[in-house]
């Protein structure tokens, strides 16, 4: 049963006089900060910057595909545009999106700690991110990379004449930034929990990030060494991956996908973590089957390491191993389904309200479910031969990543915006943006499933005229989607100055982070809290608010 919760009156809310935003001033206090909240903000600006670049590139792709011939740009330019779109969006936006911003901000608050375990390493990870970003940007400015984000060998090592090494080094650096974030989270979650905060009292957000961090620290180093080998092969022309010299291009695929398949779980698990918090808060109920949801995150992380070969079914791998990997891939659907069913059960008989984060969360559940189920099509060996390397894969991937992760990211940003900035975003405007995003998304990517099923291959600038109607739909949808993303870019900065003051706990959520002032102090908690109740205990919150100590700022 849900608890009746009335949202607090915000007309009397005041901004605290001291917070992490104003305890120190000046550029130096930001660039040399050890405060996880400030680093989260640095990350927020940075990933938004790269999201805009990646988004513009996506717009160019859709514009080119408006008409059947390759008329907007030369075909090799088109190759560079989609490659850079993929590289920037995957490595500089999706991987750090939720963990490095919202996760960085919230994990110490949620476990009841003053900071992450290693503040300097946290800052270092941001600098590494930028070094990686600058490498990738310079690869783009110097003339781009046209191998796709997958760097397939021997194409990337021998046959293209573009800036593969520069981009690979950028990804190497960005990879270490992600390793350090994961390392920090794992140590913080293990060692920095406040008294009484047992593993099964942790919010599911923390469980999701714990699972993500496991993948980050175990998967990313393999990508790093793979890219080093690609760079060495390009520079010295020797071939671990070159079949003419006795090397094995499939080995590259194995090593690359050993990271890059788990990496899609790096990109989706934090999104699921956000959704657990949002669904619980706006239905005022404990997440149904807390333990199952917690362990399903870990199960996804573990299974995620055992399915990489499903990217390689048509590359000449052994049929018997393909059978095993197909089965394992389908097994990943089990923990994902556990989450979807448990969120649905959480909604059942909850006191549901439809604030913006909840709208995005509903978007996530629907779109992620479609994205996940079409993944089963691709895991099926026979189906995969027909569908792989077509727009079906593109649509599947974007349903999970954009429809899933980006929705979750937007849900999280809106949900914790009052905590991060102390001010509310404009509700009507943001609801409009959420609906526009959803509609734009469906119009953009649903036609691509049909296109792919009809056989339109991915990664070509030109296509037969028969496919034009659906492509026009897709491009039109992309422009709607663009508006959906442009609106938050305008109203969120606006709300920093004109937004309504939020108060400590505008949603009446139960997390530790909501019990302190918004925005929090640099040291988070003046005294380390003692946890004596379960996560999502709305009864506790209802009783607590009778005699809550208001923040004196």
């Amino acid at each position, binding site marked *: 049963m849900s608890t009746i919760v009335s949202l607090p009156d915000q007309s009397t809310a005041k901004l*605290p006089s*001291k917070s992490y935003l104003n*305890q120190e001033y000046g550029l130096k206090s930001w660039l040399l900060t050890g405060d996880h909240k400030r680093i989260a903000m640095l990350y927020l600006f940075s990933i938004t910057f790269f999201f805009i670049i990646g988004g513009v590139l996506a717009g160019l792709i859709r514009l080119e595909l408006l008409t059947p011939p390759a008329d907007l740009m030369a075909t090799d330019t088109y190759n560079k545009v989609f490659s850079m779109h993929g590289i920037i969006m995957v490595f500089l936006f999706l991987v750090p999106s939720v963990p490095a911003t919202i996760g960085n901000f919230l994990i110490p608050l949620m476990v009841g700690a*003053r*900071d*992450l*375990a*290693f*503040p300097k390493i946290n800052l270092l990870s941001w600098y590494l991110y930028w070094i990686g970003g600058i490498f990738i940007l310079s690869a783009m400015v110097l003339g781009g990379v046209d191998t796709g984000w997958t760097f397939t060998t021997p194409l990337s090592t021998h046959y293209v004449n573009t800036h593969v090494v520069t981009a690979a080094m950028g990804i190497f650096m960005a990879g270490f930034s992600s*390793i350090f974030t994961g*390392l920090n989270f*794992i*140590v*913080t979650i*293990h*060692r*920095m929990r406040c008294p009484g905060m047992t593993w099964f009292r942790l919010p599911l957000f923390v469980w999701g990030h714990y699972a993500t961090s496991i993948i980050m*620290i*175990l*998967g*990313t*180093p393999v990508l*790093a*060494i793979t890219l*080093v*080998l690609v760079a*060495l092969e390009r520079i*010295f*022309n*020797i*071939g*671990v991956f070159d079949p003419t*010299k*006795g*090397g*094995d291009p499939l*080995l590259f695929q*194995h090593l690359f996908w050993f990271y890059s398949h788990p990496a899609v779980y790096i990109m989706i698990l934090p999104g699921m973590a956000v959704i657990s918090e949002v669904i619980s808060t706006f239905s005022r109920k404990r997440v149904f089957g807390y333990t199952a949801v917690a362990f399903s995150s870990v199960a996804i992380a573990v299974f995620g390491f055992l399915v990489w070969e499903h990217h390689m079914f048509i590359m000449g791998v052994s049929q018997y191993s393909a059978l095993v990997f197909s089965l394992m891939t389908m097994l990943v659907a089990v923990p994902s389904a556990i989450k979807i069913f448990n969120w649905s059960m959480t909604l059942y008989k909850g006191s549901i309200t439809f604030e913006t984060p909840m709208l995005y969360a509903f978007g996530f559940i629907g779109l992620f479910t479609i994205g996940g189920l079409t993944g089963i099509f691709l895991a099926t060996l026979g189906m995969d031969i027909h569908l792989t390397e077509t727009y079906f894969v593109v649509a599947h991937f974007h349903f999970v990543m954009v429809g899933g992760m980006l929705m979750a990211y937007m849900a999280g940003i809106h949900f914790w915006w009052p905590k991060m900035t102390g001010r509310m975003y404009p509700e009507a405007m943001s609801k409009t943006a959420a609906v526009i995003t959803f509609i734009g998304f469906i119009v953009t990517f649903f036609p691509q499933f049909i296109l792919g099923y009809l056989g339109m291959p991915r990664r070509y600038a030109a296509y037969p005229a028969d496919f034009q109607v659906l492509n026009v739909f897709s491009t039109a949808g992309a422009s709607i989607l663009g508006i959906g993303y442009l609106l938050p870019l305008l109203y969120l900065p606006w709300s920093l100055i004109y937004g309504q003051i939020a108060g*400590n706990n505008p949603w009446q959520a139960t997390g530790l982070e909501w*019990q*302190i*002032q918004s925005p929090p*102090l640099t*040291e988070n*908690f*003046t*005294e*380390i*809290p*003692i946890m*004596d*109740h379960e996560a999502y205990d709305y009864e506790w919150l209802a009783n*607590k608010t009778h*005699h*809550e*100590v*208001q*923040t*004196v*700022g």
Partner: protein
Amino acid sequence: MDSTSIATTPHELESSGLPHAHDHPAFMRHHFEDIGQQREAASFGMWVFLLTEIMFFGGLFCAYLILRNWYHPAFVAGSNTLNIALGTTNTAVLIGSSFTMAMAVYSAEMRRKGQLILFLTLTILLGFVFIGIKGVEWTTEYQEQHVPGINFSIQEFVHPTNPKAIPLAPDMAEKTQLYFFLYFAMTGMHALHMIIGISLLFFMVWRASRGAYTAGHVIPVENFGLYWHFVDIVWIFLFPLLYLISRYR
């Protein structure tokens, strides 16, 4: 829950930003609750970092495993050209340096500054000896034209000068290039870790001379020791895999 257990009122001293009374050692970071927590976090963090290092080298070992199985004769021929005496010496040097490093950690725990500096310096010296010997080996391989991508000749493997070596067919002899590429990639990556370690050791000697680690703050020395032993263990795997393939013949 008692509502006071989550304090929402800023504490006078903490929030004022002014320096406050220290009842803990100077090396304790303020976001930790006590020195035990700091120590546990640092040590656990180091183990997690070493886990990432294992995965990093794991990619190379995986490539080695597959290619060695495919081209075993080429790997044997390539391996047998290496200087086993130098390789063995280097193994002994590195194990010795791990011993001096362990003694350095012990000295820090015993708070003996002079002894700590001595053992750290000895570790640096042994590290340099290792890199030096490795350099000699690399130079020899360059002279023998065994460096892929720079100068590589299969001559030695098709028509061996050593009477005991078995000549390879030209297409298998080509594959020795893969062996030597992996040899340089793996020993190179290992040497890079050694160089990073030696640089850190110089920094630690400087810090140790100012008494940083002999007043109870052993964590950095201990963690560096873990790193150094890890680099050592990587070599313990590299040595048999690269030097000792089918040496019994």
